[in-house]
């Protein structure tokens, strides 16, 4: 999620603009969502809904395409046929997810090329975890399992949201993620229960990634008017804390059962069933998401290079009479 990047930039100060919306249309719109019906692209929708959804789906799409890079780092080096083919298929799926999500965002009015342009110009954000490197094969496995697990928590929640095209894309994505999760788990288990070299490599990778994983769902939500509205409109489906708790509850026991440790002495489940942990370094998080992480420059440079190197192909394929229209659904 991949969509989590969006959750920490819900505006807290700016006006909602709701006072400028037609009250009758707004009431119908809210009634539809309250009935559990989805919103489709040609329906009337408040500006705030369009804007926030566009931003959220776009950032989710960017996170998929940028997210293909840290695992892509090991695509030519995956050990053995089984891993080699699965690693390729997984990275391919992430690119496919970007395609699905850009399409969903396009139905709200922003073109794909504009989104890609904003990405390479550094105007859009993507999930912060992908600004960290994967120096070993085990790092890639940690992403395949645990970052995807986090993404699935988010995506399953968002698939119950109110926007039809986003739900359709997420249904397909969630079906594909089942493979990612199992593949990632399988790879981590092989490493953790394997030879001393493998176990050491895996434990070190997990230690490197744990702080980033703990920031994956974003800081605790500031409950603002915006947050409330977006939850009522089923744009934001769960709080960051709820997602984090769900993730910890599902995966920490699975990490521990294969003899791996987590680098947080305060991590434990209390008697109320709530996970306690050391507060992540949110200052560092802010610094990295604003551009100063170990891989920000590389990620953007790679996307730029891909765009630039492919420009002649797109130029050649363009038909003079062709006219862009947004996808329908």
């Amino acid at each position, binding site marked *: 999620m991949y969509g989590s990047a969006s959750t920490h930039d819900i505006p807290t100060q700016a006006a909602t603009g709701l006072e400028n919306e037609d009250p009758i249309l707004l009431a119908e719109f809210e009634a*539809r969502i309250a009935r559990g019906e989805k919103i489709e692209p040609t329906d009337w929708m408040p500006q705030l809904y369009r804007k926030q959804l566009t931003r959220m789906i776009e950032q989710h799409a960017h996170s998929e395409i940028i997210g293909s890079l840290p695992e892509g780092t090991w695509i030519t080096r995956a050990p053995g046929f089984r891993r080699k083919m699965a690693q390729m298929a997984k990275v391919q799926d992430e690119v496919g997810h970007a395609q699905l999500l850009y399409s969903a965002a396009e139905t709200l009015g922003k073109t794909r090329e504009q989104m*890609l342009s904003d990405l390479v110009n550094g105007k859009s954000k993507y999930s912060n975890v992908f600004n960290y490197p994967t120096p070993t094969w085990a790092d890639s496995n940690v992403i395949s399992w645990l970052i995807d697990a986090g993404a699935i928590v988010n995506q399953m929640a968002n698939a119950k949201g109110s926007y039809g095209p986003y739900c359709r894309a997420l249904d397909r994505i969630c079906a594909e993620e089942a*493979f990612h999760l199992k593949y990632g788990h399988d790879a981590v288990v092989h490493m953790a*229960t394997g030879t001393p070299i493998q176990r050491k490599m895996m434990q070190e990778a997990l230690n490197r990634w744990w702080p980033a994983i703990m920031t994956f769902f974003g800081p605790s939500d500031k409950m603002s008017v915006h947050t409330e509205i977006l939850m009522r409109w089923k744009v934001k489906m769960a709080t960051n804390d709820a997602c984090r708790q769900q993730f910890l509850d599902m995966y920490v026991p699975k990490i521990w059962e294969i003899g791996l440790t987590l680098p947080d002495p305060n991590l434990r489940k209390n008697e109320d069933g709530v996970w306690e942990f050391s507060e992540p370094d949110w200052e560092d998080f802010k610094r990295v998401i604003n551009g100063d992480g170990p891989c920000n420059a590389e990620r953007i*440079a790679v996307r730029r*290079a891909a*765009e630039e190197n492919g420009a002649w192909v797109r130029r050649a394929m*363009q038909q003079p009479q*062709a006219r862009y229209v947004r*996808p329908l659904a």
Partner: protein
Amino acid sequence: MLFSFDPRISRLELPESAPPPPDKAALDQFPTYEVFHQRKENTAYVYVGPVHAPEADVAFLFGKEQFSRRFPCTGMWVVPTEAIRVTEYGDDQQSVYDRLPLLPADALTTADAAGLEAYDIFHLKKRGKAHTHVGQVQAASPEAALQAAKAAFGDQRPVVNVWVIRSADLLRSDDDDRDMWTTTPDKKYREAIAYKVQDRIDRFKQER
């Protein structure tokens, strides 16, 4: 040169830093095509999503791998988004056909059958789900096709939204190419079910 842990990236020899590129030219924006799949023989084609492509043949190549690489599929149709006539969206539980304005009779009945063309009709049964093919009608225009669709399929409900597509605008997979669509079952490595690791975990726990 930019350092990367990825040998593929190192081979690109990217500069350490570079000024941001200019905004992308609009010419990079291809038209879009909508893609439909048949999951099993003798079942209706269902909408799966759009692709960006310069022309239908390329959209076909793209649609196949984007939408059928992970799920079995026996056939595919692609159509330019622009060629789809869309009705308004109704509420769940309702039928948009009920809201269809009646056209004057002479707009519907064309004396010469030569002016008739086939149109494919797709229904959306519920918001958030996918449009599904319901059948074909013969008509002289997309508007007339919609009226004909109401006559032919109007008793089905709910119908939240209807897509009308001139059949000639659909690029369809060839029956002779069936074998192109039946390759997924051999690709187990892309399925969750291929990864069974519980035995290994149990063994590990016992040995500890």
